């Protein structure tokens, strides 16, 4: 199929048209809008870097950003530890392995919005009931403080995503050759040593994939945030994705929201690329 062939372009037209109109043109326009005072209607005036300068002195936005970073770091650590542990359990020769996979993966099929509502019920009503029953104060008011709201979000995200990450680790764990493990056993290596020196290095590429996925997933979280805490109390559990949507469609501050969105894009792109680069390099050395 040559470039000159009509067929070549005919095959590409539908997706090219969609990508250009849905992603590329809005991306370019968005970049332009971020330098204007556009309010969603009418013609925008060019105001240079003002939106960006305002952004860096906007305490609300900076707090949101900091909260998102803290959340992402904690989520990545917790999800990967649980995900790998689940994978190790279900790839051992236990009989219930298939049922367990099905169960652990289940939350991923259900939308973040619904999961958030389910956990809202648990944190408010069920935790409250447990608190009343046991008299332990710590169970009460989970979605009404910043700290417990933070951990509420972590619990929800981990419950949802650990099963997904488990699938990735399983795929790599199953590729570890059985005879290598057997050989190490004969040489007298214990379970921990076998994991440390054989399984772990061979599974290293799974870390690249799962770190990448958990990072980009947790950094861009919106639905769960909206349905679990909706930013409460006082926007202190609001993450960047939600902050952008709010300032665009609730406060109608389109150009300013778009400047936030550009910063968001740059950070997501830089972090993702750096992370893939570092992990690829590390893999080669192993």
């Amino acid at each position, binding site marked *: 199929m040559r470039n000159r062939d009509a067929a070549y372009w005919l095959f590409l037209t539908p997706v090219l048209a*969609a*990508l250009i109109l849905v992603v590329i043109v809005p991306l370019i326009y*968005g970049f332009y809008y971020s330098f204007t005072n556009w309010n969603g209607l009418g013609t925008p005036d060019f105001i240079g870097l003002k939106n960006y300068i305002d952004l860096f002195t906007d305490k609300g936005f900076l707090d949101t950003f900091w909260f998102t970073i803290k959340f992402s770091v904690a989520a990545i650590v917790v999800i990967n530890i649980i995900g790998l542990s689940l994978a190790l359990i279900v790839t051992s020769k236990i009989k219930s392995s298939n049922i367990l996979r099905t*169960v652990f993966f289940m939350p991923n099929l259900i939308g973040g919005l619904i999961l958030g509502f*389910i956990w809202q*019920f648990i944190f408010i009503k069920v935790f409250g009931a447990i608190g009343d029953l046991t008299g332990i104060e710590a169970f009460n008011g989970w979605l009404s403080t910043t700290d417990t709201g933070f951990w509420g979000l972590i619990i929800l995200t981990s419950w949802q995503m650990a099963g997904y990450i488990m699938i990735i680790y399983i795929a790599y764990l199953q590729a570890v050759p059985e005879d290598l493990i057997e050989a190490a056993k004969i040489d007298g290596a214990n379970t921990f040593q076998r994991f440390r020196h054989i399984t772990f290095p061979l599974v290293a590429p799974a870390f690249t994939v799962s770190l990448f996925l958990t990072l980009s997933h947790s950094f861009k979280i*919106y639905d769960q945030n909206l349905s679990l805490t909706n930013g409460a109390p006082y926007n202190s559990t609001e993450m960047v994705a939600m902050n*952008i949507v709010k300032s665009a469609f609730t406060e109608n501050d389109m150009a300013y929201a778009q400047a936030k969105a550009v910063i968001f894009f740059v950070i997501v792109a830089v972090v993702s690329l750096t992370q893939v680069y570092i992990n690829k390099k590390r893999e080669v050395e192993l």
Partner: protein
Amino acid sequence: MREKWKLWLLGSIGFILAILWLTPFYLMIVNAFKMKRDIFADTLGLPSAWTFENFVQAFEQLDFLRTLFNSLLISGVSVVIIIIFSAMAAYALSRNKSKISSLLFFVFVAAMLIPFQSVMIPLVAQFGQFGMLNKAGLIFMYLGFGCSLSIFLYHGTLKGIPISLDEAAKIDGANRFQVFWHIIFPLLKPMSITVGILNVIWIWNDYLLPSLVIGGAGSETIPLKLFFFFGQYTKQWHLALAGLTLSIIPVIIAYFFAQRQIIKGIADGAVK
């Protein structure tokens, strides 16, 4: 003997974790069957009297059949279009090894890095100007957002399909489209299932994009309708939980019948 003991221990840990994993669903379902006062009086226990009344009310309030139909229509059409057009594009790109092909492939893959929020505002504004904030517009947007990963996945599979197959069919007088449709596309079937599963999961569950594109009464998808429903009944947990349970049922049924393919699809999609 030690080995056996170890397996028993792992099995028990797995069992406990599975119970823990299912507890949120259990609490949701059990409480959806309770009278309002029962939820307040005894959240943790089983209902003193099981009632279906909450489900009947939630079913009506959610306009459930229509909402379900909207979700099925939008996800179904979007995914079919994504599968066919992404496979065609990936085929063209993989069979033509020119600079322009590698550039286009790079652009498609790079688009995966763009978070939705960074294109959302101009996207809605522009589609609004052309009167495209409707179901058709939404499906077209899903093609735009879904094609990147899909093309990437198909491209990987196509590299393994020998070009001599194309040539043989061509000698038999088939044109490009016939070669694709009769020879290549059937060979891509396993990948099409993966691509379909990956896309249907996010499109079915997507909230933000439909909320910006199809706000109108009667055209809401399940997440959209549920959001308004929940806001309306915040303090009425018995109704809210029945609504949540109802909306999860289609997914659980689908999972029950296709769990093998779903988990395999996720694994294939994630590893490539």
